[in-house]
């Protein structure tokens, strides 16, 4: 996009990986809880920090799978 760096996190690797985004993390959190469980600040921070950390690397990157679930 625009030449600016992008990153994303998705609970749906099967649908997202085929699009080949430049940087992405994948979880098993599920629809409606993309960043983490409600009020689980620690989990939300883990997901965000891992996803945003990818911005510091040239793309494309291989998919990054996080052990995060609801």
């Amino acid at each position: 996009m625009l030449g600016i760096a992008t990153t994303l996190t998705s609970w749906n690797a099967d649908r997202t990986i085929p699009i080949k985004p430049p940087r992405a993390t994948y979880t098993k959190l599920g629809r409606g809880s993309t960043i983490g469980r409600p009020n689980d600040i620690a989990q939300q921070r883990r997901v965000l920090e891992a996803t945003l950390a990818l911005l510091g690397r040239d793309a494309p990157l291989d998919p990054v799978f996080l052990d995060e679930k609801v």
Partner: protein
Amino acid sequence: MEILENRDAWTTNFRAGWLATAEATGKLDWKRYQRPANAQPVSGKAVDLRASRLVLISSAGAYLPASQEPFDAPNPYGDYTIRLIPVCTPISAIAYAHDHYDHAAVDADPDVLVPVRRLDEMVSAGEIGALADDFISFGGYQPDLGQVIDVTIPAIVREVKVLGADAALLVPA
């Protein structure tokens, strides 16, 4: 680089399959819907997040009911418009017009889909340079990729430029 590499073929399939079935019968036959795929990954240079202005882009259907029209969530053909929401907006002032996910989690804690508070904490900690003044919102139920490419993405790009963002975090619902 094309957003969707095989757009013409995808469009032909969409019009003859899913869309034709929907218009003829009123039924949404997802077995006739071709999921998008690309062969070439998107490339791009790294950025230093600590020196970057980050824009959040969410497909949760967030909008401001006091001043904005909701997304057309019940529309089986999708809504391709966007909304801008100031990141300083009280979370209680944000509503969600999107019929394709359970709102229980986002109603309990909006950061599960619109993580403005978590990102603001990271700005305060020096992990992110700054947040763009607004986050960009749309409803992620958008079956017509042609409209996504021709309407939604250009609108988002225009706003990202205005916001002066160096980097974007995309959060699909």
